[in-house]
């Protein structure tokens, strides 16, 4: 397997530190929802750098890459479906049902 050069390893490290600086700095700007998104995106880039270069995923076999990706996929399933519950819980009505006859005091549901 390919042995990485010291230069490559050092550049990745520098990149990681720059990204760390970026994520910290961005936190002090008010970007609204953008703060969370920026944090997450930068974290994903950092982890990708670590995985690809330090963990040699760049040169790994397909099986190993699959193993690395599997957990992310199932983590996504877990988060996606449980938030599917959390985020829709307060909505009781279904759009495809014909509206009930509303009472005089107004439809509260």
């Amino acid at each position, binding site marked *: 397997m390919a042995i990485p050069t010291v230069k490559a390893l*050092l550049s990745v*490290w520098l990149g*990681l530190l720059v990204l*760390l600086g970026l994520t*910290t700095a961005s936190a002090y700007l008010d970007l609204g929802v953008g703060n969370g998104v920026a944090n997450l995106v930068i*974290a994903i880039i950092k982890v990708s750098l670590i995985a690809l270069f*330090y963990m040699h995923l760049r040169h790994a076999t397909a099986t*190993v890459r699959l193993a690395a990706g599997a957990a992310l996929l199932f983590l996504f399933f877990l988060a996606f479906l*449980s938030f599917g519950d959390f985020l829709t819980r307060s909505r009781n009505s279904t759009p495809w049902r014909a509206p009930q006859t509303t009472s005089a005091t107004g439809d509260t549901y």
Partner: protein
Amino acid sequence: MSVPAEHFATAEDQRQAAELGMWVFLTTELMFFAPLFLGYAYNRWAYASAFAEASRHTDVVIGTVNTAILLTSSLFMALAVRATQLGHRRPTQVFLLVTATLGAIFLGLKGLEYAHEWDEHLVPWLDFRFAPGNAHGAALFYYLYFGMTGLHATHLTIGIAMACVFAFRLRTQPAQHLRNQIETGALYWHFVDAIWVFLYPILYLVNRHG
């Protein structure tokens, strides 16, 4: 190359088995953290303002320095793997020890941080005090904070011990004998680092500008 265990045809087969085995193990490790991440996401959604305020009480300086330290330790771990692959025994040993030392410094700073949080009554189950309106949410934040960082610190401790054992064994064994172990051990180390890369923004940077 070391002699493969008898049920492997070649040493390369064994190396690949070890690599795949470690990746599968890391998969389980990530799933192990999953309930904490999901619990965090759920409560951050439910208690947005409390999480923002609680996060401002964390020590962002130590947190940031610690992140840099861990990223640097990963660099040295990667250098150690490279040295092993080249068969350089002494450099491997040195890089491993630097890695372990950086890990230990991280733990030391983390301990200092915990002490501050103790002083500020931020430990949820021991005399927790917080601005009344957000106390519930903040308690949950710190509950998850201690859970996640504590679990991470446990993993890091194991990693440090592992790096030290490798360095110790290198006194008597050539680097190539330990190559599989160091390579897979390094995967573990980088994984622990990667977990922190996610913990850092979600614990320290929720709402710094507010």
